[in-house]
């Protein structure tokens, strides 16, 4: 069948990218041609460069995948760049999937990580069970946030998504699809635990995870609510808390208040997405309370975009606030002998340094997505970011000359692709 004329003419102006595009197109077919095939293979990736005008710290998308834009490098390729591949097998009611992701990690390496590996059993048409490493359904885009092609932005708004960077859980879940009140609903229950390497010698763990995630769809509107709780198993800055405990009841109280190990963490999130096709608007609000020096954080964003053919200009505003003080008096030093007062002051400085990493931050973003090939998109984004309340916001590798409260710009150019 000959193609209608308008497809050819509308493609002509894009001829100069046809070299790149044809390469991508030829490598670009999801499961596709034969649905009877039990094996599926696919992948996704992002190649990006990021520049930050804040040179006294590095800009990151999440704390677990430290970017090096700003202080360490003028242009950092490791803020958003990653590669993922997924192998699936499906037979009758059983299916299995393994997804491996390569991205910059806290050990400063690109070791491939098993993002998820699970076996699914379809009990009925509407009820399914999974066992293994499962994507955590935190927030609207959390379970596909690494597949940048599926996102409207370069990266999910850091204020909300860096608040809980963990993306998977080892355990079980059950998903049930149901209809009511003209809405299509899916309710997911999960139980598991998770860990993330913070360094070569230290892991952060969350044990006893229990969560519920619910999505309702009505027409072009999607609503999501999530609640998850777990117990933290991680000893961040143990020397600080050992030190505090040497200062009597007040020191013990501060240590119990701010240490991380054994603390119950709760996460709640509410989100909506309205996408009738020509444009979209979406927003989320969440609260992550770690009952420790990791903070009790509230964050949210509002975003929208308008589609003009292959071009999608978009904007977003987002904000993170702390529900607890990000600076405290700490141990009283008055009346202490000079040596003890100096030690107490040092501990207070250490505690306040930790609290200054609880992000209080605003961002306004503008960007443009260009779908230049059928499985690749170029995105340009500018973020105007301001850290607040004496904190270093979502920045990492914070240098002594960093000053909170300065607005800075983050420029990103990425190509997202799927195969």
């Amino acid at each position, binding site marked *: 069948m000959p193609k209608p004329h308008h497809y050819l003419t509308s493609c002509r102006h894009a001829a100069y990218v046809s070299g790149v595009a044809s390469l991508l197109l030829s490598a670009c*077919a999801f499961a596709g041609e034969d649905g009877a095939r039990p094996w599926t293979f696919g992948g996704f990736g992002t190649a990006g460069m990021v520049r930050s005008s804040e040179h006294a710290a590095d800009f990151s998308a999440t704390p677990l995948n430290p970017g090096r834009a700003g202080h360490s490098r003028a242009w950092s390729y490791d803020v958003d760049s990653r590669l993922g591949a997924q192998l699936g097998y499906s037979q009758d009611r059983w299916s299995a*999937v393994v*997804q491996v992701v390569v991205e910059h990690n806290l050990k400063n390496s690109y070791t491939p990580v098993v993002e998820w590996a699970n076996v699914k059993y379809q009990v009925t048409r509407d009820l399914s069970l999974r066992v293994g490493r499962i994507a955590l359904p935190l927030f609207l885009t959390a379970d596909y946030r690494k597949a940048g092609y599926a996102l409207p932005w370069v990266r999910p708004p850091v204020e909300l998504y860096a608040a809980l960077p963990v993306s998977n859980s080892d355990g079980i879940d059950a998903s049930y699809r149901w209809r009511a009140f003209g809405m299509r609903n899916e309710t997911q229950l999960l139980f598991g635990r998770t860990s993330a390497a913070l360094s070569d010698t230290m892991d952060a763990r969350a044990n006893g995870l229990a969560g519920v995630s619910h999505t309702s769809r009505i027409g072009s509107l999607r609503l999501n609510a999530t609640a998850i709780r777990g117990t933290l198993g991680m000893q961040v800055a143990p020397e600080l808390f050992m030190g505090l405990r040497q200062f009597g009841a007040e020191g013990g109280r501060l240590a119990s208040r701010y240490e991380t190990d054994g603390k119950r963490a709760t996460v709640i999130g509410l989100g909506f997405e309205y996408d009738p096709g020509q444009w979209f608007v979406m927003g989320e609000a969440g609260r992550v309370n770690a009952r420790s020096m990791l903070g009790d954080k509230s964050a949210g964003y509002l975003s929208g975009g308008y589609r003009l053919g292959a071009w999608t200009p978009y904007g977003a505003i987002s904000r993170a606030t702390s529900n607890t003080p990000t600076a405290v008096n700490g141990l009283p030093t008055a009346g202490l002998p000079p040596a003890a007062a100096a030690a107490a002051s040092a501990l207070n400085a250490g505690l306040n340094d930790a609290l200054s990493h609880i992000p209080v931050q605003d961002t306004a973003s503008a960007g443009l997505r260009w779908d230049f090939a059928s499985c690749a998109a170029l995105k340009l984004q500018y973020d105007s970011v301001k850290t607040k309340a004496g904190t270093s916001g979502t920045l990492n590798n914070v240098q002594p000359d960093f000053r909170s409260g300065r607005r800075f710009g983050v420029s990103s150019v990425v190509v997202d692709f799927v195969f």
Partner: protein
Amino acid sequence: MARQVFLSIMLAAMLLVSAGLAGAADLVVIVSARSPVTALRADQVADIFLAESAVYPDGREATAIDLGVGSPLRDEFYARVANRNPALMKAYWTKMIFTGRGQPPRELPNSAAVRKLVAENPSMIGYIERSALDASVRPVLVVH
């Protein structure tokens, strides 16, 4: 000034939309002539093709059959039943696949192949050009 820019953007958008309509052929969504399904709404068809539903409204199993990526008929089908252009469909399947929620439908090369397979399988649903209709299949939705 802002108003003029807005109006010219709107005008450009309308031109794009009408250019799309000018080349449009009538599409029909079909099931086997042996299937008990007689009519479906566009949103019910979209649910099945987007793997949101594995069943017809009466509860019987439903399997969607697609045309290949790049087919103008496919682009028109998803633009009309799901309000999604090819890039949005790709983004949609990226979400579904890489969260383990679903796989895209099996793809066939043309209307004749879709009609033949759907005719032989009462659970299957496809879409073809209206001119490719014959007695082996039943139209359940005409997409304008």
